[in-house]
């Protein structure tokens, strides 16, 4: 993760064409220039030139209102990677004036108990204990071929329990050798890394990798797109070393299992649309796997949204925006839900619990009749347990 100094020249390349307006979800939601790359870059330029813009409260607020989705970057004529510049500026502001109270609280929780909520560590197993018989035969913190890194949200937010529960049922049905990490899991560090606290992120990165290595784990599985992106893209850079283990997202594993015929599934009668999480799709290039899964489910009809794949619009859950500005996050989510509703599908399938939560919020605010489920839940639903 580079510092602001590295990006100074890049920020100057902005020719103010305004093309980013078309691609930016926060601009679409607000129609105001401070909420688009061109405006944010101008603020950043002003903080480095004779305009002497300070890192004021408003400055930090605007820098924190970016989703870091990167949609602007892939369409920027001079090729400016605005999301990286903003992330670097967040780190700079963290140094000069500190972080928001919300992020400080999250950081504190992670430091003390290894999770974003401040829950007691043992709460990380509630989702497992919640379902009768689910824990039977499940290794916790033991050596195995795969380790399932469940993440903070699925294990600590009851409304998200259904995702790790579904994934675990699939893992058991697949007869793969796996362990979960339970209480010993630490937050992957994502909100810290993107919030301007890379050093704190490095600390949890070290802990997580060391723990996995001590168990002899070679393959780490996750159902969270952001944890996946954190492990695969950020960890090697933060730690300055090759991880020495494979990072696998649930969609990759499920796609493989289904096309190899290792899971028996029954017919699924649903018309769905798929929302590509930014961290899985645009940032990690994993578009084909979820679609392969859905193609292998008989009876499932997939209708793509107007903006899909690399062009998918962020759900509003990225960039710590839900933490910094839940109202704006909700507005962005509503726009994405509108696109989903326009496909005529009755269900949005996604592959990240954060996207699921945010889209559910948007659907609720719009009073839209559309369900949101994770792809693990879709596959588990289709498992032929007969």
């Amino acid at each position: 993760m580079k510092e602001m100094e590295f990006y100074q020249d890049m920020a100057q390349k902005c020719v103010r064409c305004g093309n980013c307006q078309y691609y930016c979800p926060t601009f679409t939601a607000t129609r105001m220039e401070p909420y688009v790359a061109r405006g944010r870059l101008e603020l950043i330029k002003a903080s480095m030139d004779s305009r002497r813009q300070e890192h004021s409260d408003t400055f930090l607020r605007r820098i924190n209102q970016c989703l870091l989705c990167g949609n602007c970057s892939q369409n920027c004529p001079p090729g400016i990677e605005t999301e990286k510049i903003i992330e670097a500026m967040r780190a700079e502001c963290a140094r000069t004036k500190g972080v928001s109270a919300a992020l400080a609280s999250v950081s504190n929780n992670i430091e003390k108990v290894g999770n974003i909520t401040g829950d007691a560590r043992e709460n990380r197993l509630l989702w497992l204990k919640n379902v009768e018989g689910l824990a039977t035969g499940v290794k916790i913190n033991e050596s195995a071929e795969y380790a399932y890194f469940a993440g903070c949200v699925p294990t600590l937010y009851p409304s998200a329990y259904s995702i790790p529960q579904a994934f675990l049922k699939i893992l058991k049905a697949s007869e793969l050798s796996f362990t979960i990490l339970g209480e010993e899991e630490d937050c992957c560090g994502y909100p810290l890394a993107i919030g301007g606290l890379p050093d704190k992120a490095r600390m949890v990165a070290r802990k997580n990798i060391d723990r996995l290595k001590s168990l002899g784990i070679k393959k780490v599985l996750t159902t969270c797109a952001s944890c996946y992106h954190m492990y695969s893209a950020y960890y090697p850079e933060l730690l300055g070393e090759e991880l020495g283990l494979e990072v696998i997202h649930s969609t990759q594993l499920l796609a493989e299992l289904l096309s190899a015929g290792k899971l028996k599934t029954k017919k699924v009668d649903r018309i769905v649309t798929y929302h590509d999480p930014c961290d899985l799709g645009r940032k990690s290039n994993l578009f084909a796997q979820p679609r392969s899964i859905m193609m292998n489910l008989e009876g499932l009809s997939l209708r793509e949204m107007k903006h899909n794949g690399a062009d998918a619009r962020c759900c509003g859950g990225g960039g710590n925006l839900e933490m910094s500005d839940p109202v704006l996050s909700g507005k962005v989510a509503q726009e994405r839900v509108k696109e989903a509703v326009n496909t005529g599908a009755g269900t949005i399938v996604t592959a990240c619990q954060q996207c699921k939560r945010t889209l559910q919020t948007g659907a609720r605010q719009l009073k839209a009749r559309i369900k949101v489920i994770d792809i693990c839940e879709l596959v588990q639903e289709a498992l032929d347990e007969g």
Partner: protein
Amino acid sequence: MFKEVIDECIRIVGQECVLTEKEDLLCYSYDATPDSELMLPDVVVAPNSRKEVVEIVKLANKNNIPIYTRGGGTNLSGGTIPVQKGIVLSTLNMNKILEIDRENLTATVEPGVVIQTLLDAVSEFGLLYPPDPGTVQTATLGGSVAECSGGLRGLKYGVTKDYVMGMEVVLADGNVLKLGGKTVKNVTGYDLVSLFIGSEGTLAVITEITLKLIPIPEYRQSMMAVFMDLDKAANTIREIIANKVIPATLEIMDNVTIRTVENYKKIGLPIDAEAILLIEVDGVKEAALKEGQIVQEICKHCGAEEIRIAANDVEREELWAARRAALPALVRIKPTTILEDATVPRSRIPEMIKKLREISLKYDVMIGTFGHAGDGNLHPTILTDENDSDEMDRVHQAIDEIFAEALKLGGTLSGEHGIGMAKAKYLEWEMGRPGIEAMRKIKEALDPRYILNPGKIFINK
């Protein structure tokens, strides 16, 4: 600005539609115009209705405060920069398509509707709004009408002014005018609709527009013709029109542009060509094919080195992607990209292109030229660095000469981008003193206190 004025703005449009913090005002101190002065406004307001616009205008007029109307802020002439501070009036909250009338083939929109949004909506009915500036995805119809945008389809289909049938505007004194309408013909009173088109926000604030639509052409065929000799390309353009074929699009890209795009996109453009022509014919299938055949024969006859015809939609998309990549490719070369639009009569294009080359060498500045060869609207694009004052001196001299030359060839300072701040100093060269005085009389009749977009078009009060 007095606190009372800001409080009044908040009362009129609501707190969420007013921006007063310095950090936010900074985001309205610029537009897409390179090498221009920036200035923070005193406040930004985003009205939600014509009623709110009227109240804001009256407030500004009463207190002698400038109003800078702004849509996407994507213009290239400094049209939306609030040089005398005051109120930036954002139209972006007025973004409803009010009506699409399939019988009368019209669409009525609020000024903040982005052009692409309209295109998407009318295409569902098999209809098209032809003017397509490069910024269709971000420019608003209010801004597009105020600047009279052109676009790639200008040769056959005309420009914005050919499609505005009516509008509603708010004058500086707060009076509302409803002009024109859905009738195909209307000669009632002075043609005020035409007056406001291209008036760059200096005569009124546009609050509603009725636009003409046409059926989407049934069929289209695109091709690229490669020339090793500029005169041959020029002859081709001349011959196509002489043979009574009016292509929907007839674009040119010079060698500098071709090389830059190829370097960026790597799509197999002929980097040794002196020029390429990108041509599209459209219409009823049989007619389009016939025209396409004629165009091919003319290209061959005039000495095209190669003719590539798009065999399907994918190839067609690739061809036009090359043209659309011209500006994005050029902006990567140097820190500052100045896109001019000095326009000449079609017949003088080869002379203009040659002159541009001479100017480039004379002042030692890099110029890539592409543009709408069919209608004479070239875009000489100067690649430079704002921070290099020596080079900028030469650039400014080069630009002076470009305009002088265009006028000498019977052309005009601006085909599409408008005068704004960027070209105000050259206006007298083309319009002469009496021309400017006539415009000033009109301006002062409608806006005697110069509150609407002051500092644009006219150099001084």
